[in-house]
């Protein structure tokens, strides 16, 4: 599968429309989540049901246009020196010191896990990256 993603541009482009990120590891996770949903579904299943089923297999990284950060979280993240973040197709992505550290939250912004992440962030209210780092991994 890794090789298919690396070598077949048409396949990669198609799966990129569905995945929140353009990196091979996330594209592979999305592909396998979809493949698993397809294999285990009845014949003639609706595309929406297939996507919902695939989404249940975290981390699927299936794109999601819903969800956003609340203002308190925005204020906290924007106050951290050398830290950048953005919402990419419904997922939070971040970078510290020009990519020396970087990462994503493997759950989308509309999920209960993301709500929990926001609660922890507000409760811990980190002022610098060293304190934020653990929250990003929670």
């Amino acid at each position, binding site marked *: 599968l*890794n090789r298919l993603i690396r*070598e077949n541009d048409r396949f990669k482009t198609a799966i990129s429309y569905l995945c929140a990120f353009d*990196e091979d590891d996330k594209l592979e996770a999305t592909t396998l989540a979809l493949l*698993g949903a397809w294999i285990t579904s009845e014949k003639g299943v609706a595309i929406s049901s297939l996507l919902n089923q695939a989404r249940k297999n975290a*981390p699927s990284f299936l794109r999601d246009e819903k969800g956003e950060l609340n203002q308190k979280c925005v204020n906290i993240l924007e106050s951290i020196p050398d830290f950048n973040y953005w919402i990419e197709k419904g997922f939070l992505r971040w970078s510290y010191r*020009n990519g020396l550290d970087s990462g994503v939250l493997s759950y989308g912004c509309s999920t209960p896990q993301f709500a929990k992440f926001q609660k922890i962030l507000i409760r811990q209210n980190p002022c610098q990256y060293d304190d934020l780092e653990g929250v990003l991994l929670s």
Partner: protein
Amino acid sequence: MTRIYTAYAENDEVIKGFLNQLIDDSTFPEDYRKVNNQLGHCLGQLLINQYSGENIELYIACTVEDADFLAKGIIDVAESSGKFGTVKLACFWNERVNLWGQPEMSVAPIKKRYREPSSGECDQVLVIVKSIISSACVVKTNLTNLINEMNPQRIAIVAPVMLEGAEEKLEQEFESTIVQRFEYYAYAKDDQKDDIGNVLPGIGGNVYERLGLGSQDEKNKRIPDIVKRRRSSLNLVV
């Protein structure tokens, strides 16, 4: 189950002793960590013998669980030898999942990455370090991530123990122009796994647990000391 020692270990009783300590259930986590570090020293010396040169950038890539132990051993030896132009580190936090409960549908997407910038002046040797290579899923993921951004002409795949057939599994995942750069360094090869996927005798079970790092979730919340130390000493223009 059959263990075969490779040419790097078959006549070395010290290395065999370290491997035996790993598979000994009575080895405490603190000692297990030390043994991994010592194996890192040995593997580091092996890399010096193979690749040293003042124009060489030795780029070590490891997972969070191996960073402070096996990888640190390699880095310490490589840096203190003074035989490389520079030594760099990338560390990955992978979220390993068997989708649908199927081992053959295993993925290990990257949650977080620490990656030191290359010097840009040296020939790169990329060294993928792992305490054990079995399905090669994590190795494949992290290697793919790095070679999409850098172009090392030599790629060393380094692990104290590998499962028989892991090399072929890894090579299936890459085009021939990448595969021809692979060079493998392992001390032992085993040929069996247990019901939950641990190689027998391998490294004595689940590496997170044996190192005393807890579950996958727990180890993925950890920031290795080597990452903290190197990050704070890096002077980067932001």
